[in-house]
């Protein structure tokens, strides 16, 4: 057990003295945290030494935005979600549509269960993509890990990925040893991730020691990509141009399974439990950690007054084509599933496939000057 002597020292000060000032704050952590909860949890730490203040630091440092509700807390290891459940359970409930501490999460990575999804109109859908994250059991998470641990995660990950064959065969590019030529190519492919600049991430400590033990793997076809040691141990991405989401999802599921098999051989499978599904750094990514989406041209529908409502009913969200917190360019939107926890991977990708198909039909109607009022879906 790793002793957190700084937390012992901190316990000498009173609750009143240590309690953060959250009067200007608007994030899930600030909504959920009370003095009672802080008092109860402040003396605790996970076996690896992660404490309540570590969990909430990012939310204290980033008061948030009146319109955008950030999560405001992170996990430092698998045990964080247990040791600090008095805080994290209400945060999870608030973020994931009322998910209860007793609920069970269903994991379904059988791509064959997806119906359709191979025929989204390529005149509208420019590209399709599915991403998720995975954490390696037995190691602490990016906000907390030491250099030794991070390097161990990288080493195992490289072994897992370089064992891949067939369409998954590819190469690993460590960030710190990359040549300029490799770097330029990765940038041109839109694969390269850089040191986080968002204060939401920096304040949680996940950018420490950059770029040590960080890197990118991608297959030769450039359709399967893994980020190592960015916000999570692994971020796994399957993508391709056009609208064949089924193929993207198949590659995603098959690739994940192959990688998992290698980790399991070393007794370091993925962090998962039947209540929270896959365990990731940010509570917003629990469950499937899955964001499946398309870049789709919807210039008319996106300006329709019911666009937001349609998205909400379809359980979808829109982003600009630069990803989270970017604006749309030329009527092209990133449309993806809004949910992560409480429904399975297949269910979430199904919502994207069905929803995008419907929206394209609406777009076509609007192009012909027809009304779409009778097409507005019921709440899914």
């Amino acid at each position, binding site marked *: 057990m790793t002793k957190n*002597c*700084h937390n012992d020292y901190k316990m000498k*000060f009173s609750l009143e003295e*240590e309690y953060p000032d959250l009067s200007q704050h608007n994030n899930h952590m600030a909504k959920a945290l009370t003095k009672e909860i802080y008092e109860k949890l402040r003396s605790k730490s996970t076996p690896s030494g992660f404490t309540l203040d570590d969990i909430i630091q990012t939310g204290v440092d980033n008061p948030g935005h009146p319109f955008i509700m950030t999560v405001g807390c992170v996990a430092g290891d698998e045990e964080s979600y247990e040791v600090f459940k008095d805080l994290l359970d209400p945060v999870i409930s608030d973020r994931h549509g009322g998910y209860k501490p007793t609920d069970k999460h269903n994991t379904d990575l059988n791509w064959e269960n997806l119906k359709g999804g191979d025929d989204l109109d390529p005149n509208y859908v420019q590209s399709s993509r599915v991403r998720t994250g995975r954490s390696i059991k037995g190691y602490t998470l990016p906000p907390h890990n030491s250099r030794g641990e991070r390097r161990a995660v990288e080493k195992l990950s490289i072994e897992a990925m370089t064992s891949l064959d067939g369409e998954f065969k590819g190469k690993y590019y460590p960030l710190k040893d990359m040549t300029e030529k490799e770097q330029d190519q990765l940038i041109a492919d839109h694969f390269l991730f850089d040191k986080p600049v968002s204060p939401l991430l920096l304040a949680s400590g996940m950018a420490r020691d950059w770029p*040590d033990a960080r890197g990118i793997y991608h297959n030769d076809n450039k359709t399967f990509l893994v980020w190592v040691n960015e916000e999570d141990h692994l971020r796994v991405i399957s993508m391709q141009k056009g609208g064949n989401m089924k193929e993207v999802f198949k590659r995603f599921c098959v690739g994940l399974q192959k990688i998992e098999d290698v980790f399991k051989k070393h007794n370091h499978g993925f962090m998962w439990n039947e209540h929270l599904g896959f365990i990731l750094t940010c509570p917003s990514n629990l469950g499937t950690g899955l964001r499946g989406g398309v870049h789709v041209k919807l210039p008319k529908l996106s300006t329709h007054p019911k666009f937001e409502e349609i998205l909400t009913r379809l359980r979808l969200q829109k982003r600009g084509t630069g990803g989270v917190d970017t604006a749309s360019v030329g009527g092209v939107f990133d449309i993806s599933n809004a949910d992560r926890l409480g429904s399975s991977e297949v269910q979430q990708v199904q919502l994207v496939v069905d929803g995008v198909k419907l929206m394209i039909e609406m777009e076509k109607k609007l192009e012909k000057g027809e009304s779409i009022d009778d097409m507005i879906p019921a709440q899914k």
Partner: protein
Amino acid sequence: MASNFARILSSKRNVGILSLVGAGSLSVGFFLTREQYVSAGAQVRRLYPASADYPDLRKHNNCMASHLTPALYAKLCDKATPNGFTLDQAIQTGVDNPGHPFIKTVGMVAGDEESYEVFADLFDPVIKERHNGYNARIMKHPTDLESSKIRGGQFDDNYVLSSRVRTGRSIRGLSLPPACTRAERREVERVVISALAGLKGNLAGKYYSLTEMTEKEQQQLIDDHFLFDKPVSPLLTCAGMARDWPDARGIWHNNEKTFLVWVNEEDHTRVISMEKGGNMKRVFERFCRGLQEVEHLIQEKGWEFMWNEHLGYILTCPSNLGTGLRAGVHIKLPRLSKDPRFPKILDNLRLQKRGTGGVDTAAVGSTFDISNLDRLGQSEVQLVQTVIDGVNYLIECEKRLEKGQDIKIPAPISQFK
């Protein structure tokens, strides 16, 4: 209130009575030898051997990276100060910021007073490199705030636009900004503003808390160029000193706007005396008087500044040890600044130039910020005298160049008088 914290009620001149109030070994630590520190401090249990955790410093150019060998890392990595500050925390900023081929940053910080002892095997060579060979084990640092000893110090206003002296002070018994808890930071704020409230005469003033300031007050402070904002420099943010911003941060200034104190920015306090024009002597007089009065006021309540006879005033960054003093002027040197001998002249005078925005800024027009290079090993009086003599020399050079006369590079002045 003070009984929650351990304090030492001894003056810096006589190592006399040690009075312990409250729990914790941190008050005892000050008087222990280094070996006793290392065993009195906490041990950190590590999951990995030191070699697995040793940082990759191959692309780094900072003082920490120059001196942290794998062997030294292995020796120190499982140690912690009594408050729990570790080596990894001390060096994080230097690991995260490789540095620049031309500018050598320090690359490490202290989390508390005891850091300089527990991690002396790394701090000492860093201090030596940064402070011109100063040997912290052997040498003694002179502290002298008797401003009456200053000779001259009233510059020609045609050249000198403004004069300023700044330093920092830390409150003994409370952790430093990289490590402090919210409670400690708030206690620093309480101790300091209570003392400042006791200042009278031309030092009387007001405190503006960053969390409570009105928009009007904020604008006024911006217009006066007094407002400091959340640090953006990764050198500072990676060290953890911006946590919980803006909780317990604030600015105090006197009504005349010539004496200013920053609370809980990079150090517990930064103390600044300034005014327009070239009267450095008066600026330094006010500086010394203000510091001495604040010290007196905190001592009345049982507190004192962190100081010892080897390192002088203890501050977060090793570069600010000793006096922590930067005395400087904004000065117009249109001809001299274009002379190729300018850098060498500054160097020999133990001065440095900066842009008028402060560190890492460029000069505007030909107005420069000229200040002392050194911090440790010479007293406040000595350093300010150095600045005064040096600036006088620079003005002489500028005047000579105006008249078409030649100038000379002065002989280098010695350090560690």
